[in-house]
């Protein structure tokens, strides 16, 4: 009787093993992506050859299959912000990088995005930022979209902050932002309002040049 019970208890483990092997097979047949040639990328982006080499080596090291899916993206971004929860902001960032909206970021998408952020004109950078805030890509930033973005940014701070984070802080921040950006007070911020306002703001202009020598 004891042996029967032992045999019964063994069976579920075997069943689990078979499902695992099916999943393993799926993973093996995962997509492998190879980027375009170095010359083409050099022409399309503003990076030099050496910089592209360094970027690709880092990219390939972390994602051997050649594409980043959203989970890996979130993991990588979360490593930089250990105290808070970076997954929501990483989600928005992923959508901003994934320009063709196919659910994965290839090396070309990655390097195009970086090219704009690090080597682009201020105009291009502002357009990229607007694109990031405009979650549904309809050309308008509403208060709800801005609130989502703001909450995502504050989530990255985590719990242990000084002063203590309160629940209405993101909302307040959004109000302040809209106060400044929404010139015609119609409740949404269009791209022209956004660019105009940012160009008139010294702080923002200065901060746009902050990361130019990152690579």
């Amino acid at each position, binding site marked *: *009787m*004891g*042996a029967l*019970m*032992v045999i019964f208890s063994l069976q579920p483990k075997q069943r689990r093993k078979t499902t695992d092997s099916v999943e393993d097979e799926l993973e093996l047949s995962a997509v492998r992506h190879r980027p375009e040639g170095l010359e083409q990328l050099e022409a399309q982006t503003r990076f030099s050859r*050496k910089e592209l080499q360094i*970027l690709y*080596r*880092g*990219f390939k*090291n*972390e994602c051997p299959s050649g594409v980043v899916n959203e989970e890996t993206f979130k993991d*990588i*971004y979360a*490593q*930089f*912000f*250990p*105290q808070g929860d970076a997954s929501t902001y990483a989600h928005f*960032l992923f959508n*901003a990088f994934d320009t063709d909206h196919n659910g994965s970021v290839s090396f070309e998408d990655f390097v195009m*995005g970086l090219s704009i*952020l*690090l080597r682009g004109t201020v105009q291009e*950078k502002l357009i990229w*930022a607007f694109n*990031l*805030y405009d979650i549904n890509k309809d050309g308008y930033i509403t208060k709800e979209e801005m609130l989502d*973005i*703001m909450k995502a*940014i*504050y989530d*990255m*701070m*985590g*719990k*242990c*902050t*000084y*002063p*203590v*984070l*309160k*629940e*209405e802080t993101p909302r*307040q*921040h959004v109000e*302040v*932002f809209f*106060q*400044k950006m929404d010139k015609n007070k119609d409740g949404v911020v269009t791209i022209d309002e956004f660019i105009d306002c940012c160009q008139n703001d010294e702080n*923002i202009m*200065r*901060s*746009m040049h*902050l*990361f130019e*020598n*990152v*690579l």
Partner: protein
Amino acid sequence: MAAGVAAWLPFARAAAIGWMPVASTPMPIPPQDKRKAQDGLIILNVSGTKFQTWRTTLERYPDTLLGSTERDFFFHEETSEYFFDRDPDIFRHILNFYRTGKLHYPRQECISAYDEELAFFGIIPEIIGDCCYEEYKDRRRENAERLQDDEEMDMNNDVTPVNLTFREYLWRAFENPHTSTLALVFYYVTGFFIAISVMANVVETVPCGTLPNRSKEMSCGDRYALAFFCLDTACVMIFTVEYLLRLIAAPSRCKFMKSVMSVIDVVAIMPYYIGLVMTDNDQVSGAFVTLRVFRVFRIFKFSRHSAGLRILGYTLKSCASELGFLLFSLTMAIIIFATVMFYAEKGSTATKFTSIPAAFWYTIVTMTTLGYGDMVPKTIVGKVFGSICSLSGVLVIALPVPVIVSNFSRIYHQSQRAEKRRAQRKTRLARIRAAKIRGTNAYMRYKQNGLLIDALEEEAGQALVGKAASPPFESQHHHLLHCLEKTTNHEFVDEQTFQANCMEISVVNKSGSRTSSLSSSPHGLSSCCSRRHRKKSSFSLPSTNNQELSTIQIRERPVSNSRSSLNAKLDETMPLKCDEAYISPSMVRLSAPVATSSDDASTATTTYSQSNIVRVSAL
């Protein structure tokens, strides 16, 4: 943090441009890379085998030998390569650690050689990946046990140090009989008397022939009662003396008295003494006879003389849970079949199956395939179930005995491994948490250092001290976190400071004389200071900061980190007050409620609140 993602730091920093338009305060200056990261190849010559890797690969782990300036000591000028006089086979794994972020343990390598190499290159073994960690720990444990056994053997073979006290000498003689002749003699004498005593117990019960004036046959014990009594007395005296001597010599008497062997000793000699003090009363003689049974426990005293018995005991003890489960399942089967047999045989006349417990005996005898035949089922249904019972008994006991034995050993090892994995998981999570805390602590320290340097710069009017020699990756990561702080206008603090702040705030709230009666915010909050926030409106944020700060200054808090940083931060914000050019219309609204609440605030706090207003609304 995993340095594999060090390559993604430029991406994370570039993505920070997304925060710029919504930032509350201006961004800090990025760290200057004094030397541009030369991404050249480094040649590592390990005893003739040349390894090459990028410089940045090695610099991923700056607290190891290869990642820090320590490797400069090994630079060989003539060949412009780094030469290490170490084992190239093990070095391969160490270099792979830099490349992939995972350290593997090769099974064919000796554990101590591997440990030495890790120690030389400054890598802690806890980084070993999960795939190899268990193997590593097992090998390490075996090695440690081997070392310990060697030490014990050495200790036992040592020449007796002369300056032992009599007590220690006695204990040593008892534990290791072969150290001195006297101990050996004592060892054999006690062994002999144990054997004599056990044999006497056995022979006592043999029938010895009848006495002329008695009709019944007598046992030897009754016939030669005096002789046996003297023998018993002698044995018990020897055992008592031995027990008392051991008790005196034991280094820790309580521990000795709780040990298994001493319990056996006591149980072996107790019946004799109890028999002595009890009168020859008929009522208690029955109990006295039962006590004599305990004399058989003297046989267990042999376990001091036999290592095999001890090992058997340990094995049984360690397999106790598996044996218990076996017993439990057998009991279940017995109860099931006994019940079935009882109800099956209930109808038949003059049946032996008078109750279910009576049927237990039948079930046990049938399942173990003994079949005494004293109880047999008479009804057909009973016979059917009886045969099922005996067949299942065969299944349960006869067939899978080896299977059960091996199953139990496998299950035992599996559960041990599961326990190990669970324990390792806890330590692994603790390691990850510690690494996270190290990361944040590094950032706190960086902030302190940065502020300290800023203060020095202000005093001296020039940059005396360059930024501490932190590797470029670290300083860039800290700059990124600093940007986030500036965007949200909140600072990172460590766990203890945060808890302390919350506690302070709640205490202040309880004694709160400064609670203003502003409009309460209706939201339920998840932070631990929700009680306080419900009372104050969000616009009074500046004044609540003051309360925190003032209470912190009043009470002597041992957490100096936060205090210094808080104070330093205030100093930092003071100049801001003058520099801030834009005062948005929102500030006008802020000033009104603050004025009402700062009526009871001191002048100092008013200045603080103004500076805080500037911080909050610097758009």
